[in-house]
């Protein structure tokens, strides 16, 4: 049983804190596992044995794909943008939480201007928030909301909003 983050006096300290790896696995796998299975099921036996179960589309698959594409697009441009190392590290972590692969380093891209960086990061934060509100899977929503919050904590957005 979980409890408040700060325990009442006299009771053992209880925290919602869960090891990051476990949370990400639980959140991403619960949300993404079915998307992977329904989208990439190459085992013909499964199609023969239970066609109705495998044919069920994952209602959040388009959200997962859009979220990964958003982060990949940012990474592609930020990787060649001067002074964006912290943002690149942040988005790589976030993409990993969504079980996405980073874009290939061989792909050519133009760097962002400082204004473009702010605009694209702000847009991404808004998109992730919207996806968190509209997706059906709760664990996926948690990851998406956390990505949105994580983007908003980055100095590039905090400096502009203060």
């Amino acid at each position, binding site marked *: 049983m979980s409890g408040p983050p700060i*325990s009442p006096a006299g009771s053992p*300290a209880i925290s919602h804190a869960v090891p990051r790896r476990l949370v990400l696995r639980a959140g991403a796998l619960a949300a993404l596992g079915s998307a992977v299975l329904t989208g990439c099921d190459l085992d013909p036996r499964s199609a023969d044995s239970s066609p109705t179960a495998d044919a069920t589309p994952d209602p959040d698959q388009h959200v997962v794909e859009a979220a990964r594409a958003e982060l990949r697009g940012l990474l592609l441009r930020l990787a060649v943008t001067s002074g964006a190392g912290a943002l690149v590290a942040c988005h790589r972590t976030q993409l990993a939480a969504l079980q996405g692969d980073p874009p290939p380093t061989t792909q050519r891209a133009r760097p962002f201007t400082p204004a473009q960086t702010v605009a694209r990061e702000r847009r991404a934060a808004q998109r992730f928030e919207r996806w968190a509100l509209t997706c059906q899977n709760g664990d996926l929503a948690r990851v998406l*909301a956390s990505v949105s919050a994580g983007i908003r904590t980055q100095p590039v957005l*905090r400096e502009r909003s203060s």
Partner: protein
Amino acid sequence: MSGATDALQRTLAGEHAAVFVLGALGGRASALPAPALRAALDRAYAVHLRRRDELRARVATAGAQPLAAAPAYRLPRPLDTAAQVEAAALHVERACATTYAALVAATSGHDRAWAVDALVATAVGETAFGGGPESLPGLA
């Protein structure tokens, strides 16, 4: 009780604790030469009071009896310096962010929107207590 209502109650329990601890930290900070920290604690206390009241209303709307606060909560120790008080406040905010993230997962609609707003605002507000940028606030 539904999963969503249970999650609302857990978040309310967290808010009760946050209000208690932040109030105590504010009292402690008032004896320290740290006006910026006192102001930040005042703002955080007001935010969590408002959230506690909003959560009470949400639990009641869900048809449940809102959880009452515990008589007291264990305070972090020691709290002799501004740095210690600030660290304790940051711990409270991060614990609340984790609770809000859990609420996001357990709810939908207006309750999820409330939880997302609270998660984002808390993650951004952690800077008032020395928190730095995080890739995935509320998940650590």
